[in-house]
Each structure stands twice: as C-alpha cells, then as structure tokens.
C-alpha cells in the first residue's frame, strides 16, 4: 500500500495552570478548615483565661487546674475502662457475625445485614435514649418483664460503667463487622480451599487460615473501637448522668458550668488531653492499615466459593444474630417509637389508653423545633451535596499524584479523625468568635455545615477515594496519551466514571449528617438548631416527651436515607 503520511495534529495548548491553581486553592482551604480550629484549641489551652479576656496570659495554669481535679482522673479512668470493655465485646462479636454472614449458608442472612449496620446509622444519643425508655428503671421492656414474672426489680441495670461498656460494645459491633467482612471478602477463597483440600476441617480453616489473615483488619478495627470509646459522648451523657459517672467528653461538657464563668482555657486543656490520646491511636491505625494490605498482595482470584454448610449449627448462629439485632436495634428503636406516642408512662398504665399525638403536636407548634427539623434536612441534603463536592475536589487534588502535597493531604485528612465531634464544634465556635469577619456566619446553618464537613472528612474521603481507585489508571493514561490535560481528564473522564460512586457518597453523607449531634452542641444558637444538638439540650432540660418525638423524627430521616440506599443497591460500607 502506498499511503501518504498524514500530518500529525498537535493537541491544542494545554491549560495545566488552571488545574494547578484549583489544586492549590483546594489544599489551602482544606488546610485552613482543618488546622485553624485545632491551632486555636492548642493556643487557648496555653492561656490562663478565655482568649477574649484582656487579662489572659500565656501559661500552663489550665493544665495545672485540671490535673489537680480528681474528677478529671476519674473521667479518664472511666473512659479507659469503657473503651477497653467495649473493644473486648465488639471485636469478637463483630468478627463472628462477619464470619457467619460471609462464609456460611445461614438462610436469610442477606436480609439481616442492613439490621446489623443500623446502629452505625442511628445517632448514639438517640440509641442511648432508646435504651433508657425501653430498658431503664421504668422502661417499657422493664415494666413488661416485671409484670410478666411478677418481680420487683429487673435483672439488669443501665446506669453503671459495665452496662455502658456493654451497650457501647454492642452498638459498635458494626464498626468491626464492616472491616472484618470486607477482609473476609477480599481474602482469596483459594487459600481457604487449599487448606480444606489439605485435610483441614472448616473450624480449623477458620482458626488457622482465615483468622490470622484477617487479624490485621481486626486489630485495625480494635484500635478504631477503642478510640471511639475515648470519644463517647451521647451514651455516657444519657446513661452516666443518673449515677454521676463522668467520662472525658462529658467531663469537658460539664466543665462549661463548673466555674460559673466561661472556662474556655480549661476546656481547651481537656480537649488537648483527649486529642493526645486519640491522635497516636489514629496514627497507629494508619500503620495497621498498611499491615492489613500486606496480605492483599498475594491474593488468589476471588472466585465464588461454596458456602460452609452449618447443619445443626444454623440454630445457634441464627439465635446469635437475632439476639444481637433484638437487643441492639429492636429494643431501643421500639422504645423510642412507643415513647413518642405516650406522654404518661409508668407501672399500671395501660398502653393502649396512653397513646397520644400530644408530643408531636407540641413539636410542630414550637418554631425552634420546626427550624431544627428543617435545618437537619437542609444540612443533610444540600449540605451533603456541597460536602461531597468539596471532598471530591480534595480527592482530585491528591489523585494519582505522588508528590509532597499528596502526602500532606493524606495526613491532613487524618487529623479530624482524632478530634471528637464535641471538640470540633467547640473549636469552630471559637473560630467564629475569634475572627470578626466570620462572626456573622456563626448564627447561620453554615457554621454547622462547615464543622460537620471537617469532622467527617476522613470518613468521606474514604468513600471518594474508593470510587476514584476503581477507575483503572489506563483510562486516565489513555486520556493523556491522546492529549488531554489533567483538568480535562478529571472533568471529562474520571468524574463521569465515578458519578454513581458520588451519588452513593452523597446518600451516605446525608445519613451521617442526619445522625450527627455532638458537633453541633456548642454551635447551638437561634438559627443553627439541628435535631441532634437540640436533643442534647432538651435532654439536659428533662423534656423527655419532646426528646422522644424528635428522636423518632430523626430515626425516620435516617430511615428514608437507608431505604433509598437499599432501593438503589448502594453499598452501606466501603
């Protein structure tokens, strides 16, 4: 063939600088949003008085004060006890449930999975409250059990450190479950089959092959549960209060009123102490995660694997699952659902006569509550979309780049993880007070949205980057080879490809924002009400009826998100 050579068409001028500018801007804004509030906490903790007080001086007085306070040490001890207890409960149980769900032929197990995950989507404040109204001293279940068996006292109590550790342990099972089941899924079934063929019984395979191989993931989730234990706020606030049991976060919260005047410097010192415990744990987790990936390098093809026949063990396995779901999900949620329709409950009250819509009527007559509901929806739907857009921008800023900035983003994203929501809310409150230009925004829902977005940065970035990682690098490299700049590739190749992943992230972020409560506690002001923070404040005021009604509304909002997610087959975990 005598073909004439065709003249090459050069790609049009590349607009790389535009992408670089956007990247720099994204990193700068994120760094300010993450590091600004934290630095402010650190600075405040080193002052002898609140930062707005003219008499403030640099000094360690705040630390000296709290270290001399016996309550601080008690709270620290309680936090460590509860964290240890809940880790010991959540890790084995989560691993066991993951094994049953991933490896056995238990009938109807797919139907169970959303229920196992429910506790991670319902606000801990709401769940704890649910436990009180269902199984507290005059809870529905307590009364029923007492009437049924004719006993004076229910054989359980909620207001002790042990009970808190058990409840916290049960409600944190999903955190372990998602990591353990993902690890089991990723574990090539061939290594287990090889052991079976070599002559090992299923139990032996589970103990000698599967367990050691998912151990890094279990350790990872153990550290996660432990530091979530240090951060616990809603649960000890509800269950610890009656007996005056304080943990770190509730100690911090009570400190506000302790001296009668704003004691920001003391709160900051406690906050620094909490972060000093959690941040090393976060770094340790990151280290463990790399360990978890060690085994993933030699992975067989993840073929379909024959499920392990349970035989007679199906009953104990089903009983375990059912008990877990009953105690952790059904009891508290049914408690709230009932309590919301009852204003008057105790011994000898006939439930069918006590049913009323009074609480809801009250909620919908009170502008603050209506605003709280609307704000909660607004911050979840619109705020959630904006948050996903922000996270996506961060994702692109670090995507397939291996320079210093990418590593900086990696660590930057980790930082908020170590900061409990309560502290983050406090820090943002101070940011809004400290910088006069921002002060007008303080009474708008923007302040809550910003704090939420920063608190959930690490969680959200995992969602975004798992979507980004699914795009095969060849697709982007092919874009470059035909002459597209990074910016064009990001917008026209990668972004359309991760569209579904982003929609799913939006939904998950919506649910998380509906559930969030502690971050908004200190930001609560006329105009910034959200249900979560409102619940904390109403609980303090003892308005149980309203708390029940608002809790139910909160559960419904999360439930709507959950229903949409299940309807569209969104994976509830990464």
């Amino acid at each position, binding site marked *: 063939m005598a073909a004439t050579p065709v003249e090459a068409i050069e790609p049009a001028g590349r607009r790389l600088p535009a992408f670089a500018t956007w990247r720099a801007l994204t990193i700068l804004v994120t760094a300010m949003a993450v590091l600004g509030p934290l630095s402010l906490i650190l600075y405040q903790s080193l002052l002898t008085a609140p930062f707005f007080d003219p008499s403030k001086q640099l000094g360690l007085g705040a630390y000296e004060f709290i270290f001399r306070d016996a309550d601080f040490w008690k709270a620290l001890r309680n936090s460590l006890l509860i964290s240890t207890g809940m880790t010991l409960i959540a890790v084995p149980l989560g691993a066991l449930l993951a094994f049953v769900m991933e490896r056995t032929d238990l009938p109807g197990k797919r139907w169970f999975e959303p229920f196992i995950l429910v506790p991670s989507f319902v606000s801990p404040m709401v769940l704890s409250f649910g436990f009180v109204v269902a199984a507290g001293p005059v809870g529905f279940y307590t009364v029923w059990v007492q009437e049924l068996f004719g006993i004076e006292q229910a054989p359980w109590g909620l207001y002790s450190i042990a009970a808190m550790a058990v409840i916290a342990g049960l409600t944190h099972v999903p955190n372990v479950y998602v990591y353990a089941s993902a690890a089991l899924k990723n574990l090539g079934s061939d290594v287990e*089959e090889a052991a*079976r063929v070599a002559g090992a019984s299923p139990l032996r395979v589970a103990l000698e092959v599967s367990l050691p191989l998912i151990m890094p993931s279990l350790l990872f989730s153990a550290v996660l549960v432990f530091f979530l234990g240090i951060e616990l706020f809603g649960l000890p606030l509800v269950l610890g209060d009656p007996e005056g049991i304080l943990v770190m976060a509730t100690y911090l919260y009570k400190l506000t009123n302790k001296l009668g005047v704003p004691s920001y410097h003391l709160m900051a010192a406690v906050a620094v102490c909490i972060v000093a415990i959690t941040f090393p744990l976060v770094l340790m987790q990151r280290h463990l995660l790399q360990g978890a990936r060690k085994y993933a390098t030699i992975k*067989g093809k993840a073929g379909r694997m024959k499920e392990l026949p349970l035989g007679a063990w199906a009953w104990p396995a089903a009983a375990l699952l059912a008990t877990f779901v009953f105690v952790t999900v059904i009891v508290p949620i049914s408690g709230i659902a009932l309590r919301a329709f009852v204003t008057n409950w105790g011994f000898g009250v006939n439930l069918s006569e006590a049913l009323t819509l009074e609480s809801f009527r009250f909620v919908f007559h009170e502008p603050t509550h209506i605003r709280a509901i609307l704000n909660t929806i607004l911050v979840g739907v619109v705020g959630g979309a904006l948050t996903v857009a922000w996270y996506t921008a961060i994702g692109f800023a670090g995507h397939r780049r291996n320079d210093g900035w990418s590593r900086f983003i990696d660590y930057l994203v980790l930082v908020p993880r170590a900061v409990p929501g309560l502290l983050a809310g406090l820090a943002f409150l101070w940011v809004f007070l400290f910088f006069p230009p921002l002060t007008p925004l303080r009474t708008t829902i923007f302040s809550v949205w910003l704090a939420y977005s920063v608190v959930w940065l690490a969680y959200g970035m995992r969602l975004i980057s798992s979507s980004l990682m699914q795009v095969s690098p060849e697709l982007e490299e092919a874009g470059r080879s035909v002459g597209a700049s990074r910016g064009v590739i990001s917008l026209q190749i990668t972004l359309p490809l991760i569209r579904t992943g982003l929609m799913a992230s939006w939904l998950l972020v919506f649910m998380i924002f509906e559930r969030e409560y502690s971050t908004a506690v200190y930001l609560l002001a006329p105009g910034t009400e959200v249900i979560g923070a409102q619940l904390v404040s109403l609980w303090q005021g003892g308005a149980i009826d309203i708390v029940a009604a608002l809790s139910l509304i909160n559960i419904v909002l999360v439930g709507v998100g959950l229903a949409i997610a299940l309807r569209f087959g969104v994976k509830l975990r990464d």
Partner: protein
Amino acid sequence: MAELTVENLHLTYGTNPILKGVSMVLNRGEVVSLLGPSGSGKTTLLRAVGGLESPHKGSIRIGEKVVFDGERGLEVPAEARNLGLVFQSYALWPHKTVADNVAFGLKLRKVSTGDIGTRVQKALDELSLGHLAQRFPHQLSGGQQQRVAIARALVYNPPVILMDEPLSNLDAKLREEARAWLRELIVEMQLSALVVTHDQAESMAMSDRILLLNNGVIEQQGTPQQMYDTPETLFTADFMGSNNRLPGKVAQVQDGHALLEGAGWKLWGRSRASTRNGGDGTGMIRLERMRVATGPGDNRIEPELTTSMFLGDKWEHIFHLGETTLRAHTAAALAKGRHWLEIPRDSFWVF
C-alpha cells in the same frame, strides 16, 4: 487400576448448566489433561472432584471410595477426600513460611513433629527448594511459588493430584521449562494426575491422555497423537492445532475420502463421520502439512501470496484464495505473487 472415576456428572450454577453429563477415568500412574476453551467446564470438573463444587447428579469415586453420589445424596467434604490440589494462583498461605505451608497437611494428619521435619525437607529438596524453607511466600519468585504449591500438594502422598492451570501464572519462557520439569517429575514420581489447561500444546506435552471438553460435555478423548492426528469433529480438529479452513461443497464421497469444491478449486481429503455428499463442507489442514510446490499437480491450488513474516526458525506466509485466507510455513523466503500449494490428501479432513 482406576484411581479416579467420574460417572455422568451434572453441575449447575443457578439455572446455568456447567457440566452436562461428564464421565471419565484416571488410572494409576497416568496423567490426564482436561482441555477446553474458557467456559467449557474443565475447572468446574476439577473442583467438583476436589469437593469444592457441588454437582447435583452423577458420581465420583476415588479409588474404591465413593466421595459423591447424587442419587444417595452423599457428598464427602473436601478435607476428607485426601487429594492434592495445586491452585492456579498457588494459594500459598501468606502468613506461613514455605516449610509451614508444606507441613500443614502433615500436621493435620497427625504425623509426629520429627517425621514432619524430615518429610518436608525431603519434599522441598526434591523440588530444589531446600534453601528457601524459612522464607515467606511473598519473598519467592513465581516459579518458586509454583514449586512450593506442588510440594504442598505432594508431601502427604495423595493417590491423585489435581492441578488447575499449573503453568498459566508463569511467563512464557519459564512456562516451557516448567512444563518439561513438571512432566519429568510426574513420570519419575509415578503420580496419578488430573491437569486442567487451556493450552493444547501444554496438554499434549504433559499428559498420557487428553479429555477435550466443549460446553459441558466431552467432545473427544484419546492420546495426544490420536487427538492431533485423527480428530473426529471440526471442534477437535480446530482446537488441537494451527489450521487452515477451506469452506466449500462436498461433491463426492467414496472409500473414506471426499471431494471438496470451491470457486475454481477441487481438493480430495479424508471424509469424517459428519461428511454429507452434496452438502456444505469445511476442509481443514494443519499449517505444517501445507507444502509449497513448484508447479500444478494433484490436489494443488494457486493462491496469491500477500504478506510474509519472519519467525526466526521459519517463515510464515499469508495467501489469499478468493475470499479465503491461508497460511503456510517455509524454511526460505518467498517472492510475492502466485504460488502453487499442495494439500496432501491424507492430511486434509473434510467435515
């Protein structure tokens, strides 16, 4: 004596039938390959023998022991079948050293610790892995990992060893060496082995008998020579080598031979069971049986040479005869243009 007997095995994934009645026998000291394209059911058959898939009909016997019987609802679990299985991915346990990987099967068989040590070392030495005993799998090369996987399957002397594409994870050059090494090992140790492969050259080189699977049934079985030289079906003929196909009309059938006619050509070849006089037919000949001739003659055609490729040990040429493309090898280069090609009638099958 039969070490493994499979009778009329059926297996279905959901509503999708994978095996539709497969029967086979593996005798002691024999290597049988399961050959077939992807989706033919060869790996499924191997996994069913290993106890990793559940068939719904038929039976499997290992020696005298029935390990699966659909009618009686009997299914012996994988760990009680006492087989050795070499996985395509090797499936080495990443948290155990090479020695521990190999020792695991012995440990489960309650062999004493001292014995385990000697037997593991012996197995590793036989496969030239002795010096790697304390390494972890990720510290080994692909070829070494493959040998560890084999050692692990052999160490407890199972009566039958199953291999799922044992060479496919090695790169091309290493694969040829490993093929020779593996055949020698199997012969030397007098193993009875069932080997899955999708590569016909590999199956011919490694095995005493080949079972060609197509779409869940056995298309043809026999020794490598039988499979290569006397294919019974077009599928077998096509799968077993590199071929030229010539579509045409069957003009005449007599004495085991048939005359195939196309536009401007007529060729005699061997008729097969499916050859129908007066119907459409497909002629097929292995590439290496094509001969370039100097002039016209019996069973010759005159296509046009358009492209030549130098392959090192020979030349490959591409000819066009009307719509049909033909390939042939020669030792020396050929000029472009028309050439005479001889199609030896005993090497040309008409299906």
